[in-house]
């Protein structure tokens, strides 16, 4: 447990509406990530952040934007939700320990349904 909480846990929204998902962490991690999980695709990176106001795109960033105004919060926004964005979204931090072991820690996920 790396102190990661996501909100909301579930959301149903209509096509074309904006949606913001929140990831909050309590352990001052520098790097934060948003993934989506879809059957047959596993976990795919949407965007990540390497510091306050420093973000970069992942492999499936189209239709998404992110913001990080504080270390502890990383927001994922769907500007105009589409049905293809129905998915389960996971926030994560990835850290490398003293032994050089890299590990990802995940939030509990947000199930988003776009109708």
């Amino acid at each position, binding site marked *: 447990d790396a102190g*990661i909480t996501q909100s909301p846990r579930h959301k149903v929204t209509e096509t074309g509406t904006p949606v913001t998902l929140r990831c909050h962490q309590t352990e001052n991690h520098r*790097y934060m*990530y948003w*993934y989506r999980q879809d*059957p*047959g*695709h*596993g*976990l*795919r*990176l949407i965007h*990540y952040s*390497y510091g306050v106001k420093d973000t970069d795109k*992942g492999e499936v960033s189209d239709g998404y934007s992110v913001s990080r105004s504080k270390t502890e919060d990383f927001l994922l926004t769907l500007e105009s939700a589409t049905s293809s964005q129905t998915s389960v979204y*996971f926030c*994560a931090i*990835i850290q*490398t320990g003293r032994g050089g*072991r*890299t*590990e*990802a*820690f*995940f*939030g*509990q*996920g947000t*199930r988003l349904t776009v109708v």
Partner: protein
Amino acid sequence: DQQVKQNSPSLSVQEGRISILNCDYTNSMFDYFLWYKKYPAEGPTFLISISSIKDKNEDGRFTVFLNKSAKHLSLHIVPSQPGDSAVYFCAAPINNDMRFGAGTRLTVKP
């Protein structure tokens, strides 16, 4: 470009038998691999890992094998238990990111 591949979307085994989950990768730069386990409505959690300098790592009922020449790793669960029923992802970190396979859903039948 899916650099980590799990070609079996599902696997069903009988309780007490061995479960073998497979993973292939294409990027020779990967030097560390992890397996994650995911239950419904929960985030993935770390299960076991292996460094590329090893070919085997064991932790209780879980053993991961790495064949670098074949770019293949496998997770063995012996004996399998109903509580092992979950989705398993293999993953490899690279450049401050983590690449995941598509996952294999394991069902262990009592």
